[in-house]
């Protein structure tokens, strides 16, 4: 076998485990070795769980006793905002330092039921606010392709850990592109499912009408396997929906060229055009579509996300969990404790407070809600003409650490192509589409496909064809 065990795809590992050619302990050991080699410089994991080898042994014993599970013995990395009972979880924030989860997120429970092993928790932008993982309270994560560059964000730790073979797959969360953009920067597959497809119970909330958990994997087949296990209705999240196999036709791809004019890196555009040629050679019809309102997705996103996160984050008061910074009275306890938030979190809470405050509510928040509906109508109309919409996942390859951190609006523009899927609730899949050569380093690029509500399985089929995966 040419591949090292920590380099296996989930589906490959699953087959070898089922044939008992390898053990879960072997795979977990291989991952731990790679973590020892690379995590100190990459800072992808905030913590490696000390019981992951024990869990692997238990999985092997369970298999010997004749048990099976869709992910029995497969190690995964989990973003630090998804709760695993008894484990520390901090959303990479100093305000939650030391906090231990008192229950399992539904996605975690379903993975546990499937026999998965959790290697550790991965770094992220604090409270998932950012596109570079530079906003972590626990240091920046680096891109394995070029350590002077960011891995993207906010699920940058998960992306970096997977791209450097320190895990077989990972979970991230995506509020405005936080699974797809780091997937693009690190050359892996990332899915933002239909809103409601995966339960949000047990993820640390940011923008509740936007947040979704998503799998981050090396192949589309792996993403599909994990999606099947963790998706579906959950009585603990009233926004979850029944998963139905979509009957979407699968041959017409629309491209909103009018949205791809400005601010796109030359290599990204060139690579995108090559990807479209490839799709045509695979038998897809590629045509231009108009989405006149799509350009407002990013401002709508920043208003709604700010509003929702400022309310969601009001729970961090130093009373019930995390840290408390004492002051002279109860009010000072609150305000001093909340001063532990990092710069970006403060910015977004203040922005959200502003757009919700009397006098500005109508001009910002209400307007954003109305425009959000207009954007949804645009997409619904285009999906009468085409089956998928394609854009690059991000306008540039991974940027340098420190390059954008002092200019919030420039940083936000990295989400320009990913926020529409969160605004509309539609599923979107980012696939690796090639490389850009910068300073003698190969930097991954990504293409994103958006489909109608619950078109995940059609997206997987398209993705497998695009990447040339077998078993289509």
């Amino acid at each position, binding site marked *: 076998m040419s591949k090292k065990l920590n380099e296996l795809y989930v589906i490959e590992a699953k087959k070898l485990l089922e044939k008992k050619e390898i053990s879960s302990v072997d795979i977990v050991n291989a991952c731990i070795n790679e973590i020892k080699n690379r995590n100190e410089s990459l800072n992808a994991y905030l913590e490696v769980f000390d019981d992951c080898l024990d869990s692997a042994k238990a999985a092997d014993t369970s298999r010997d006793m004749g048990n099976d599970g869709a992910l029995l013995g497969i190690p995964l990395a989990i973003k630090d905002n998804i709760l695993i009972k008894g484990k520390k979880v901090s959303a990479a924030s100093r305000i939650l330092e030391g906090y231990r989860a008192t229950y399992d997120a539904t996605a975690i429970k379903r993975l546990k039921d499937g026999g998965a092993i959790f290697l550790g928790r991965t770094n992220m932008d604090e409270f998932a606010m950012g596109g570079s993982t530079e906003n972590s309270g626990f240091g920046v994560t680096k891109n394995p392709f070029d350590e002077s560059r960011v891995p993207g964000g906010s699920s940058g730790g998960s992306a970096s850990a997977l791209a450097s073979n320190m895990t077989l797959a990972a979970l991230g969360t995506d509020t405005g592109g936080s699974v797809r953009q780091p997937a693009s920067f690190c050359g892996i597959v990332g899915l933002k499912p239909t809103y409601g497809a995966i339960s949000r119970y047990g993820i640390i909330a940011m923008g509740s009408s936007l947040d979704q958990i998503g799998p981050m994997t090396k192949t589309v087949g792996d993403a599909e396997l994990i999606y099947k296990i963790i998706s579906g209705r959950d009585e603990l999240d009233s926004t979850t929906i029944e998963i139905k196999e979509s009957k979407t036709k699968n041959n017409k791809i629309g491209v909103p060229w009018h949205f791809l004019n400005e601010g796109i890196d030359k290599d990204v555009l060139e690579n995108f055009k090559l990807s479209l040629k490839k799709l045509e050679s695979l038998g897809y019809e590629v045509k231009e579509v108009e989405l006149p309102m799509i350009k407002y997705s990013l401002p709508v996103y920043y208003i709604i996300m700010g509003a929702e996160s400022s309310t969601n984050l009001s729970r961090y008061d130093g009373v019930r969990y*995390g840290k408390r910074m004492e002051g002279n009275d109860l009010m000072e306890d609150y305000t001093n404790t909340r001063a532990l*938030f990092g710069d970006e979190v403060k910015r977004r809470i203040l922005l959200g407070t502003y757009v919700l405050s009397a006098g500005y509510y109508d001009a910002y928040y209400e307007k954003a809600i109305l425009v959000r509906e207009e954007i949804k109508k645009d997409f619904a109309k285009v999906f009468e003409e085409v089956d998928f919409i394609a854009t690059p996942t991000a306008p540039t390859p991974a940027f340098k650490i420190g390059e954008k951190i002092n200019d*919030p609006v420039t940083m936000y523009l990295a989400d320009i192509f990913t926020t529409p899927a969160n605004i509309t609730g539609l599923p979107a899949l980012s696939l690796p589409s090639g490389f850009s050569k910068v300073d003698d380093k190969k930097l991954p690029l990504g293409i994103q496909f958006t489909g109608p509500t619950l078109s995940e399985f059609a997206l997987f089929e398209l993705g497998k064809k695009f990447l040339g995966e077998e078993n289509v």
Partner: protein
Amino acid sequence: MISKDDIKKLSSLSRITISEKEEEKLAKDMEGILSYVGQLSEVEISDRGVSKEKSELKNIMREDVISNNYNIVANDILKESPKLKGDYIVVKKIL
């Protein structure tokens, strides 16, 4: 224009202590962000209806019964509080 006074007001509304030094930077950042998101003012909404795409969301109802073992769950949750006295969370008095 976002002034330092606006930032003071927002920091008080959002219960976050913000230092003098931060105020200036935040005022500048907020100014930039608001001018960017302010482009929404150019959108005219003629039809205020909701989108045609039908929502898949349905209410999930359940019986209003306690499904957890209260003692175990309450203890686990209490343990996460920064300051406890017996089964009570300690905060400064407000009267």
